[in-house]
């Protein structure tokens, strides 16, 4: 949060640095009594490099500015692939924009948070503090290249997001000079409370009484017990076969959810056969065919795909933002060079509306991934 003034000159910096080192001597004098030789003073340069947080009162906010129009440009290049062109996408993350109204901007409370039927809670519906948006975009976005945006770009992207949410007009230029005014337009700015019992100190005021004290009743505590909710039958195997997710020895086994359930009324004896049959060692199921050379390629390709964040948009077997690796493999068998070129150049229009940006990996790495894709994109 602590930032040195903009006018901070190299000379002043050296002087201040020396002063701080002098202070450090003083500080260490206290500490060195107890732990001599452990730790040293951080230099102003080091603190400036890491102290990037921005507080709700905008302490820590660097100078700069960016327009809605500039923000749109950056958004479409760097943000839209995950968040959608209008911040509405739910394909990778929860939607950022939507659900706020001009009325909310006036009242400071998002009315739809009162509507249990409203399907989603977007970031703009929830966030009360403008600093939070600026700080997080600055420290963590874009997702696969965090901390790569300049301060001006962060202002611009923040402005564009707020424009999508009808908080700021098309012509707006957001800057360190007007963040306070924009804070006063945040749709859910009055939507927070710290009046609860789940903070362990008194920093937010006196602790509230816990709101869900349970009961210590021991006898005849309820009159009637009804099952009010259970998993529907179609979800029986949704989490995979539970027989493979429990230990194979002990008082119970996992239920074989790859099979329909034995009638609930069936007595326990019938279930035992299933359980005993499943005692077959799982280790035996782990063997997969394939030569050692293939295994190495698959491993290397997947490691590269992970390292280069390909897996953020492509699943091995399922679509995320882009097609699955399996789908690509099916469409382009044997076409190593084509795929390697496409990986590096990016593309648009072949698989859907969201373009794939160009990727900055080496030709050799692109070829390793391409070779894996062109030979079927086998799982390891």
């Amino acid at each position: 949060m602590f930032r040195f003034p903009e006018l901070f000159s190299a000379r002043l910096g050296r002087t201040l640095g020396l002063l701080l080192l002098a202070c450090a001597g003083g500080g260490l004098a206290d500490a060195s009594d107890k732990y001599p030789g452990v730790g040293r003073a951080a230099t102003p340069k080091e603190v400036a490099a890491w102290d990037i947080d921005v507080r709700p009162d905008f302490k820590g906010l660097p100078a700069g500015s960016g327009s809605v129009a500039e923000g749109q440009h950056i958004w479409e290049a760097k943000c839209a692939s995950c968040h959608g062109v209008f911040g509405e996408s739910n394909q990778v993350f929860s939607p950022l924009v939507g659900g706020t109204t001009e009325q909310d901007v006036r009242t400071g409370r998002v009315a739809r948070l009162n509507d249990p039927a409203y399907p989603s809670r977007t970031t703009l519906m929830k966030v009360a503090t403008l600093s939070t948006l600026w700080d997080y975009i600055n420290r963590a976005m874009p997702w696969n290249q965090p901390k790569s945006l300049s301060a001006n770009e962060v202002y611009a992207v923040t402005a564009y997001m707020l424009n999508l949410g009808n908080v700021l007009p098309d012509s707006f230029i957001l800057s360190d000079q007007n963040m306070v005014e924009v804070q006063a337009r945040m749709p859910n700015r009055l939507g927070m409370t710290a009046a609860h019992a789940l903070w362990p100190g008194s920093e937010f005021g006196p602790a509230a009484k816990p709101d869900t004290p349970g009961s210590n009743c021991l006898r005849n505590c309820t009159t009637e017990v009804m099952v009010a909710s259970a998993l529907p039958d179609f979800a029986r195997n949704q989490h995979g076969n539970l027989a493979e997710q429990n230990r194979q020895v002990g008082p119970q086994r996992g239920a074989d959810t790859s099979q329909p359930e034995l009638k609930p009324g069936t007595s326990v004896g019938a279930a035992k056969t299933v359980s005993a049959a499943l005692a077959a060692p799982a280790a035996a199921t782990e063997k997969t065919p394939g030569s050692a050379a293939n295994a190495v390629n698959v491993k290397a390709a997947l490691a590269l795909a992970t390292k280069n964040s390909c897996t953020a948009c492509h699943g091995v077997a399922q679509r995320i933002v882009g097609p699955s690796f399996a789908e690509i493999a099916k469409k382009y068998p044997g076409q190593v060079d084509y795929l390697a070129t496409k990986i590096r150049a990016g593309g648009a229009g072949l698989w859907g509306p969201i373009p794939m940006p160009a990727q900055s990996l080496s030709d050799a790495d692109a070829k390793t991934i391409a070779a894996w894709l062109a030979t079927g994109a086998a799982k390891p």
Partner: protein
Amino acid sequence: MNTHWLNPGRLRRAPENFLGRAGLQTVAHEARAGRRDFLRNAFAAASGAAASAALAQANPLPPSGGDPNILALPEHSKGLGQGVASEGYGKPSQYEANLQRRQSPGLTQTTQSSVSFAPLQSMFGIVTPSGLHFERHHQGWWDIDPSRHRLMVNGSEPGMLKTPMVFTLDEIMRLPSVSRFHFIECGANTGMEWGNVAVPTAQYSHGMLSCSEFTGVPLITLLEMAGADLKKGRFVLAEGADGSSMTRTIPLSQILNGEVLVAYGQNGEMLRPENGYPLRLVVPGIQGVSWVKYLRRIELGDKPYATKDEAIHYMDLMPNGLHRQYTSIQECKSVVTTPSGGQVLLDRGYYNITGLAWSGRGKVARVDVSVDGGRNWRAARLEAPVMSKCLSRFNLDWVWDGQPAIIQSRATDDSGLAQPSYRQSRAARGTRSIYHNNSIQSWLVQANGEVKNVQVS
């Protein structure tokens, strides 16, 4: 027994982003491939070959008068085993391969911003093996070179502490250390179940929970070394070194009493990379998101920080449309792990009902268990050691008569607070708050031995 139990009531929509159509499709797709086919074949082969009679009992006595596992000596009794150090770092038995941390299908779209759940249903005691510790990453995990990792301690303004400082791992590990057992629970643990039953097993319903012995330096030591003004400073920001540089506002009260640790050790070895190697914050009793991994910076300030994970996520929506912000304490909670959802009991007769209890406010004082859906309760045995802000193991004898039963556990902590029922939780907080669900869990044991996750009215 009341057969109403077996009739599911009204099914409610799951909270946002859980059990969506996309998730169901993913699962359906994955279900068509993979190991399942093998097991189905194995099942067919086994039941065919063994002609069932011998398999119908867990410990059968064959007509021949003796168990072949006893009468015919096995290979390992008649041969030479393997030598020392054949595995430089030992692994679990091959027969334990089913114990894995797992993702809940459809919960998240990427693996880098996701969660994997610990297999509570198959674990013993209170300590989580480090390789099965649940994971939550916001921007992927890293294996960071400890010789290049640094921790900075600074202030939000010059007067907040005398000297901003930097420490190497070598230096932090030179300082006096403490080792303490604590649970860590994600604030969203059991969050999928606020509205209705959404997942089948204890792994998915409660598995964002782990417990380890952590070793490190009390954060107060480092703040004092930097000459912190602990009257002026009222909040601490903790910041990670990974892509998201995760930040959270940490309660100063817990730092002052020495509970908050800058930890490098976990269960006798260094932290695992997935758990923040080489340095993480340990904030006992507080939700996992505050236990910042890859810890690179501590800032002392006079105001809270409203970071992304306390101003957009990890806030609890109340029925009146207000969000509770800075909710942190994991309140008193428990879960029966055996028998639990997705398991099949092998036979009638004796069972040891066992489970875990914990509280972010202190020690577990007692655990009561019901086998009739909460009508009547019996006190369970609380096994030593019972430590503050740590998992505790409870056990209770039970003879199952083969009739349907609904098993529940209810913990009470030493502040006198007991776990609420779902009815009580929803009356206070509605069904949309996602976080901090410590309601009483119900498992329905059916006559066929299969155990189901249910909620009772």
